[in-house]
């Protein structure tokens, strides 16, 4: 379970909570809850979305417990401080300011609402389908579409010309 879905669980938890230690705690509790609830898994959703649903639930609980601090936009390395690492891509390695752009993207993610950030992480970062993302977020597909639309719109506005600069 951890080998198969550990990466997605950790990526989702760290993306939602923006705190590596808290995210690891959430993943740990999610694994224990999955172990306890495994006999009740009926297979209505895919195993991945079920696992991510449990992880997201625990992250939401944590977010409710504490007032979410979006972090400082001036963080020098927001990826490293949040336990995130960049997956090397050959076509992007030539871009000198890619790390800076990703840091800006993380800072922009901070400014999204929790629901919008969850939709972006499930759909765009983890590559889930709309149905899987909706099941993981425990909302209808239309809701996840709407959240994703507004989140992308906000991200585009916040990033401004940075994405265009990256593209060219």
């Amino acid at each position, binding site marked *: 379970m*951890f080998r198969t879905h*550990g*990466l997605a*669980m*950790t*990526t989702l*938890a*760290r*993306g939602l909570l923006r705190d*590596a230690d808290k*995210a*690891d705690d959430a*993943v*740990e509790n999610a*694994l*224990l809850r999955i*172990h306890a609830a495994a006999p009740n898994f009926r297979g209505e959703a895919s195993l991945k979305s079920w696992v991510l649903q449990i992880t997201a639930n625990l992250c939401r609980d944590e977010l409710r417990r504490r007032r979410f601090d979006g972090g400082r936009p001036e963080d020098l390395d927001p*990826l490293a401080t*949040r*336990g*995130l*690492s*960049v*997956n090397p*891509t050959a076509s*992007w390695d030539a871009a000198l300011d890619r790390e800076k*752009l*990703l840091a800006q*993207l*993380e800072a922009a993610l901070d400014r999204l609402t929790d629901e919008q950030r969850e939709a*972006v*992480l499930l*759909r*765009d*970062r983890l*590559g889930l*389908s*709309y149905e899987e993302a909706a099941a993981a977020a425990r909302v209808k597909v239309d809701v996840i579409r709407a959240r994703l639309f507004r989140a*992308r719109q906000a*991200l*585009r506005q916040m*990033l401004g010309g940075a*994405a*265009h600069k*990256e*593209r060219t």
Partner: protein
Amino acid sequence: MNDAMQPDERGGETMSDDDRRLAALLASVQAEPNPAVWARVRARLAAADTPAPVRPRIEAFLDWLTRPAALAAATATLVVALGTGWSMVESITGSSGGTSATTTSEQLVTSDAASLMESLLEVGDAETDAGSAGSVESNEAGDSAAPGDSGGRS
């Protein structure tokens, strides 16, 4: 920004180039799972599967044992306090009144009552001596005002 819409390969949705680039940027960031998390999970699962450890049993037994022990200690303290108080009372009464060491509680009460009566009588005598002059005058005045009353009542 280029908003040319093209079908999204993941869900058949139309995405603009910006959205696609944004999604690609987002997908390029991942978090490596922490192996310590899995180790902690395994340890917690193993701890949950094993029977109750010995130490809590001992602690529970000690908890149970200390409850009657505390009761016994409290009772012993009470007995010691009563015994000490009793012996102190005996020593005081024995030295002041010259009574024997086998003085009973009734005798103690009697001697206390006698001394109290004596002290009250002493106080009453002192007050009588101090106010004798005033009382004589008042008696004389009373006799002159109502000579029949005093004789009638007595």
